[in-house]
């Protein structure tokens, strides 16, 4: 274990004026509050089945054998705040991440024999990625994301074509999703919902980078998120939550449950499924007999199908670049 400097050490440092150990937030002035603006809650402007636009491009990092960069379109309130800033605090955030693939390369001499390709995944948040600063050492949630990503990709890669070799896949998250609206106190159903959107983005980007590195896969695997959302927290709490595809946690009052899948459309198969939260009630159309968790999984698969169209277009561009050198 690495020894971190304790608070005691910094307390004894009397020669400098240190900033507060915890983060601070930009000031919010009373005049702002009265006129609205800074404290307007972000609202979802999309239809429940609409996805955010995705920007995906491969081959941006020349030293890697495959790479990709993915960005979600900022929500309308974020776009408004950027073009017409009223406050220092952005109302929501949009995912940005880059992914690199190194390999296939021979395993080190010390490694045990493996008849298959050995996949290693690293997911790291940049220190400035979230509202709260992340350390340089990967924490539990980042390791957890790495395991999820590995499961998602291992099912798609045809691993027996590269015996005794390995690939390293590294994802750096430059801007992460919020877990809730920034000014909300954590409520009953609070959990790291932003992580699920991040994982879906990681899966799609990693799939593009692996295709860019010319590693054989069964199909392009893409990630999708669906969530059960209850927006009216006021008096009608008995109302069942509704299904939203690609839900941005900053745009909703309360997320009850969410689900991420990694999905291969050509085989109609799921390589990774992560569902959490209270999924017992759901408001579906009349005649729909699905239970809440089935509806969630189906919704996430629909979102993944949407991401797949972007992914296949990005991979097609990659191939065009390869056959027509500039």
């Amino acid at each position: 274990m690495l020894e971190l400097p304790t608070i005691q050490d910094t307390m004894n440092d009397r020669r400098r004026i240190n900033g507060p150990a915890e983060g601070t937030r930009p000031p919010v002035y009373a005049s702002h509050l009265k006129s609205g603006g800074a404290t307007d809650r972000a609202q979802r402007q999309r239809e429940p089945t609409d996805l955010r636009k995705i920007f995906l491009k491969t081959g941006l990092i020349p030293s890697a054998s495959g790479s990709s960069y993915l960005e979600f379109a900022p929500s309308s309130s974020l776009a408004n705040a950027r073009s017409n800033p009223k406050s220092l605090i952005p109302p929501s955030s949009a995912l940005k991440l880059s992914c690199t693939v190194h390999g296939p390369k021979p395993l080190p001499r010390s490694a045990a024999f493996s008849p298959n390709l050995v996949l290693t995944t690293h997911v790291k948040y940049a220190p400035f990625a979230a509202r709260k600063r992340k350390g340089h050492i990967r924490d539990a949630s980042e390791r957890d994301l790495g395991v999820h990503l590995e499961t998602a990709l291992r099912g798609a890669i045809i691993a027996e074509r590269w015996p005794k070799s390995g690939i390293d896949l590294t994802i750096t998250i430059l801007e992460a999703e919020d877990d809730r609206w920034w000014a909300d106190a954590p409520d009953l159903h609070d959990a790291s919902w932003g992580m699920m959107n991040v994982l879906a983005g990681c899966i799609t980007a990693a799939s593009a980078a692996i295709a860019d590195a010319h590693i054989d896969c069964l199909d392009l695997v893409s990630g999708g998120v669906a969530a059960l959302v209850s927006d009216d927290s006021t008096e009608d709490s008995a109302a069942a939550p509704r299904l939203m595809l690609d839900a941005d946690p900053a745009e909703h009052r309360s997320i009850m449950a969410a689900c991420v899948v990694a999905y291969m459309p050509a085989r109609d198969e799921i390589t990774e499924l992560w569902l959490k939260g209270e999924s017992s009630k759901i408001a579906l159309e009349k005649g729909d007999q699905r239970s809440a968790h089935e509806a969630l999984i189906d919704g996430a698969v629909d979102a993944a199908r949407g991401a797949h169209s972007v992914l296949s277009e990005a991979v097609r561009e990659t191939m065009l670049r390869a056959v027509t050198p500039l």
Partner: protein
Amino acid sequence: MSSQRQASSAAQIPHLSPAELSYLYTSLSLPNSPIRPDGRSPTQFRPLSAETNILPGTNGSARIGFADGTQAIVGVKAEVEKTVLVSDTLDVQHEAQGTGNGEGGEGSSSAVTGGHGSWVQMSIEIPGFRDDDALPVFLSEMMRESLVGSVGVKDKSGEENMAGGLKGRLVINKRWHWRLYIDVLLLSQPLSYPLPLLSLTTHLALLSTKLPKLKSKGEEDPFFDDDWAVAEYIYPRVLGVSNTLQVRPPVTLLVISVGENVIFDPTREEIAVADAVLAISVTRDNEAGSLQPLKLLSIRTIDPPSRLTQPGIPNSENVNMLGAPAPNENVAVLNPATGEEEVPGVWRPRRGGVKRSVIAGMVKTVLKKGGVGEEVLAGLEGVEVS
């Protein structure tokens, strides 16, 4: 070292030959009546011995040992901690209206009564793994998310019925709360994927966990009764209909699918040939009027270790068998479950993922009335918690 690290997400693969793997797969995928190596039925668990309250220094503890010699101990410790109001939240209503000076309103209480997921800390120690390896991290996140994710329902009678689930139970008042440390120790080498063992032990330990009785009232600094005999269970003993405990900690079940069969509590050999591995967390649904007795809290796929195994080579492709007369039965057939050409009796690791119908089937076997989930919870209730 890196291959050991990489295999860690699905526990180590046993050293079985392709022929053995193929034999196991065939017997486990027999339609409707899988034959397991130890003769269990598909939904039967391994025999285990359990005891609770074994560690006097903890608030609650349990030990479970499986018949194959794997043992786990869980200790639960609780500490009183001052609630730090999250600095970057903004109570818009309060500040905008200018009412109330900071606290004392009804608006700010909603945040506090909810409790916070980070108040439950979980650490898992598995021999042979570092504490930042993938397996312990993955397991502890999986078990923690279902623990803090379960939110009890408010009873109409207004009784104390775990509103807010475990998180809500940890709130003492607006300024103080309990912090719960759940430390899981696997005493033996992980012979099989340790999730069922660790989850059942954690469940029992939480059932036996007691917190000292609070003597102070309201917003006073907390002051507790020093008589341990009057301490209160963290999961209160309220008997509901059909004489079962109403509020239960969640339990995580390991389910695999082989061919068209769904198999519970797999051993190391069985999990090595699984098509899909799911960890499904459930708890009792104490909401009136629900059709199912159980509530789903989380599902996670676990990387099936079969993807790391060595494939077998059919005789027709084996260079050593070139001179041998070609046997007639050695013809590739299309496997309906995988949609790939396979030679019967030759092991071929499963490629790709799971169909949605398979996942739905696995979840249904756990959740349905009289299903495995209910059986497990009833069985755990039988363990005498003293």
